[in-house]
């Protein structure tokens, strides 16, 4: 055992603390923060706009900044927010009528009083301005103030809070860093937002067994940083890894750029400490590679906070690869780039990272970070090979030859680490780069069988024309996870609705070709209607039965991840499940 190291930067800073200049600098160095900066600049320009769907910051406590942004936030147009779908909260930002305020206060008072018996006063937030940082996660178009937010510091306090919620029948939503992109941490209007921000310590690192016990609020990247001196790292690297918390990663089964070779969160954790809604604490999994009984660890991973609250995670650590080299290849068609991906894999090579960008994505990224991308290419592939020096050496020439054979017009091998980092910088900056060319964008997250890529891109382009909105595509080519970014302007009436409609069509297309509506961002509130497309009523009913096994009263994160059968029926979709129409005996026109 080596000494336990606290995560030096807590996931959520004190709301009254001044913005830390070092943190802002760190943010500027990373792409994901571009949106935060954009939000800050918007705020300072007092430009009246409604924040984009995929806009970090924008008033919410997205990761380390929490309260510091909130205090600068005039957001004069909040009152103009209008519900777009039934899931979207009605204007929560405007001052409510006095009656509504009084009713709310009446509901709050007993809950606050009960919570104060469990938690220190500073751990119970109920003033409107204190709750504002928790009104949304990374999906900022959905906002809702919780009745109360709590910041427990011990597992016993979490247990007591859940027991109380259970007794009072209060909905409760757990929240980590608030970087999720599907609205999974959207608070319950009549319930408790349970922030795990204070659980920010790395409890222990076990070098010999290659594991780390960490509290759920520890940032993903902080784990790898803490164990780097041992030559180890934590493999899943979601793009928000400097900010997102490990508890949230488990709840969403987060992926990243290296999933094909190193797996998702579910493949890289060994055990969880969880608290169920009845306040009971359980150990799921254990210190060995497997555990007796059912694989509840797999069931818990990706369950979006609907089954239990995670209070500790034991992650697996891997030895850092000795070296990594990256190839950049340009193609005249998306098809030939797709073929090259299939050929590399057929050759028996599993690259550490394999990413594709289409022309609009290449141009946007190049304009932003000047990675020296070939801007005339229809698509580029970035192929990273990692392992021991000799392994990588063995594969580089093989991959280069394959890429050329598949019609690459240019293949470049990063000469050194600086160039490798520059090649990746463009890809990693793709989202904020798109944020520069469009006022708002909406990030989709479908996964498809890779062979369907040309068809899906062609159909997406047609849908894009039909809806009058441009789409930029970045693609985790190795594992088939496609992120179409729909460009829109929330200030133009109807464009957000168009963007959401186009997004829904793209997800349905993913299901149609044998894929899924979400590869790594989760369902949350965002894709709950598409769940009715992907799953048949009996399957959804089975999900609800599993949920009830853990949370019979449905208090944990209600209304997320799994739609009610009634809701799917209301949508009235003529959804085709497994190639079978419902009620095949009826004629359809």
């Amino acid at each position, binding site marked *: 055992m080596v000494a336990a190291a606290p995560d030096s930067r807590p996931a959520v800073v004190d709301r009254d603390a001044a913005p830390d200049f070092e943190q802002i600098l760190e943010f500027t160095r990373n792409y994901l923060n571009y949106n935060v900066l954009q939000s800050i600049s918007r705020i300072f320009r007092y430009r009246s706009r409604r924040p984009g769907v995929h806009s970090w910051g924008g008033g919410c406590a997205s990761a380390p900044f929490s309260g510091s942004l909130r205090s600068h936030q005039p957001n004069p147009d909040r009152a103009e927010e209008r519900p777009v779908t039934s899931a979207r909260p009605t204007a929560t930002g405007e001052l409510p009528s006095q009656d509504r305020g009084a009713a709310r206060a009446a509901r709050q008072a007993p809950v606050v009083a009960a919570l104060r018996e469990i938690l220190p006063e500073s751990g119970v937030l109920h003033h409107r301005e204190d709750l504002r940082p928790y009104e949304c996660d990374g999906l900022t178009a959905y906002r809702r103030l919780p009745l109360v937010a709590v910041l427990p510091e011990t597992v016993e306090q979490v247990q007591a809070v859940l027991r109380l919620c259970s007794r009072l029948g209060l909905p409760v939503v757990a929240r980590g860093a608030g970087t999720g992109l599907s609205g999974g941490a959207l608070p319950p209007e009549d319930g408790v937002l349970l922030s795990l921000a204070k659980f920010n310590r790395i409890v222990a690192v076990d070098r010999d067994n290659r594991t780390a016990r960490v509290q759920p609020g520890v940032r993903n990247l902080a784990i790898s940083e803490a164990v780097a001196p041992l030559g180890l790292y934590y493999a899943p690297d979601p793009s928000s890894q400097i900010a997102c918390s490990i508890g949230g990663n488990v709840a969403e089964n987060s992926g990243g750029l290296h999933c094909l070779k190193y797996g998702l969160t579910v493949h890289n954790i060994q055990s969880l400490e969880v608290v169920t809604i009845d306040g009971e604490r359980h150990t799921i999994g254990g210190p060995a590679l497997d555990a007796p009984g059912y694989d509840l660890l797999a069931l818990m991973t990706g369950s979006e906070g609907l089954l239990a609250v995670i209070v500790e995670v034991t992650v697996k650590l891997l030895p850092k690869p000795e070296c990594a080299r990256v190839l950049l290849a340009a193609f005249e068609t998306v098809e030939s780039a797709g073929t090259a991906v299939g050929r590399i894999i057929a050759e028996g090579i599993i690259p550490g990272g394999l990413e594709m960008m289409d022309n609009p994505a290449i141009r946007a990224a190049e304009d932003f970070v000047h990675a020296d991308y070939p801007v005339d290419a229809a698509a580029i592939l970035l192929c990273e090979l990692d392992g021991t020096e000799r392994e990588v050496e063995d594969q580089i020439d093989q991959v280069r030859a394959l890429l050329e054979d598949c019609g690459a017009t240019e293949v470049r091998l990063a000469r050194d680490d600086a160039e490798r980092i520059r090649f990746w910088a463009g890809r990693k900056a793709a989202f904020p780069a798109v944020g520069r060319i469009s006022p708002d964008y909406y990030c989709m997250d479908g996964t498809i*069988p890779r062979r369907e890529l040309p068809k899906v891109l062609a159909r997406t382009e047609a849908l894009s024309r039909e809806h009058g909105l441009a789409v930029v595509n970045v693609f*985790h080519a190795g594992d088939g996870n496609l992120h179409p970014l729909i460009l829109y302007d929330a200030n133009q009436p109807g464009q957000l609705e168009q963007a959401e409609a186009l997004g829904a069509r793209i997800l349905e297309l993913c299901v149609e070709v044998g894929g899924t509506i979400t590869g790594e961002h989760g369902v949350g509130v965002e894709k709950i209607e598409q769940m009715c497309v992907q799953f048949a009523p009996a399957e959804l009913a089975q999900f609800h039965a599993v949920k009830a096994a853990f949370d019979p009263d449905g208090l944990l994160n209600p209304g997320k991840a799994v739609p009610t059968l009634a809701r799917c029926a209301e949508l009235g979709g003529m959804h085709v499940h497994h190639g079978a129409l419902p009620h095949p005996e009826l004629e359809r026109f």
Partner: protein
Amino acid sequence: MVRTMDDPAVVAIRERVAAAAASGTALRLRGGGSKDFLGRRAVGEPVELGGLRGVVSYEPTELVITARAGTPLAEIEQVLAESGQMLAFEPPRLGAGATIGGTIAAGLSGPRRPWYGAARDHVLGTRIVNGRGELLAFGGQVMKNVAGYDLSRLMAGAMGTLGILVEVSLKVLPRPAETVTLVQEASAAEAIERLARWSGQPLPLSGAVHVDGRLHVRLSGTPGGVAAAVAKIGGEGDGDQFFDAWRELDHPFFAPTDGGDTDQLWRISVPPAAAPLEVARGDGGQWAVDWGGALRWWRPREACSEQAVRAAVSAAGGHATLLRGGDPDGEVFHPLAPGILALHRRVKAALDPAGVLNPGRMYSDL
């Protein structure tokens, strides 16, 4: 091939389960029969699943194979080998009849497991018939999929108690270009220490077993990568036979002795760096270390108190399965903590409310 949902065999299974649920009749699920010895005694009317055969789809460049659950494991491995691919969790067949469904239901993984993942890690999707007789699809045929609870991976290792697998989709991987096995002299403690050291380095390990005073290490990867690792680790070269036999529990270490109650085989899962265990008084017997330290096999010289063994293993952070020689009506798998057992009962009830699927095969009250 007809669609799974229209397959008369699947329709028959659904009807059979629905009728059993209505009448409260226990069903005993059976594929190839190769894992009949595993777990507790199966009770109920037999449901033969070996007829659900055939590879549904396989596209090597997608790294995914989908097959009916009764497809022989040997057939799947043959199909994959023709394209230079493999099931990376190296499942033990433990008999000619082994099916892919039984393999996933048993959740067993071979020597490659610490570095390439377990059976559950390679499950991408399943079609099951639950205890209500409903045909349900979870997961899919893509690498990343977080829509809905992961009920597919939940099926792995559930011994058929949560649903009848009718189709599974698995992630497959390319076979490494080069594989070399090395042997070194070592005590168990030395072997565990070496393995902890090597596992912390980026070495292309694909197997590590210590038995009879010798540490067998397998390296797999590119020719250059393996050659460099061989130079680093050192040892005498050996053929592939050792790991092939070990995977199938075909090595002399596992050979039954004179039979009788004393012929026990324990499978003990522990943190990889755990020191050699002393699980019971006079624990002479024979020990082997597998999974780079994380799996210990024990053949006690004389029958021992199961409770004492389990207490000692629990104290080491592990769990013990009495793979052979136990009482089939006693508990074979490690007892669950009371809270976890309660969750198991509720999960079981959620999928099989009438409790008709393989009741008692895993634990007496599941």
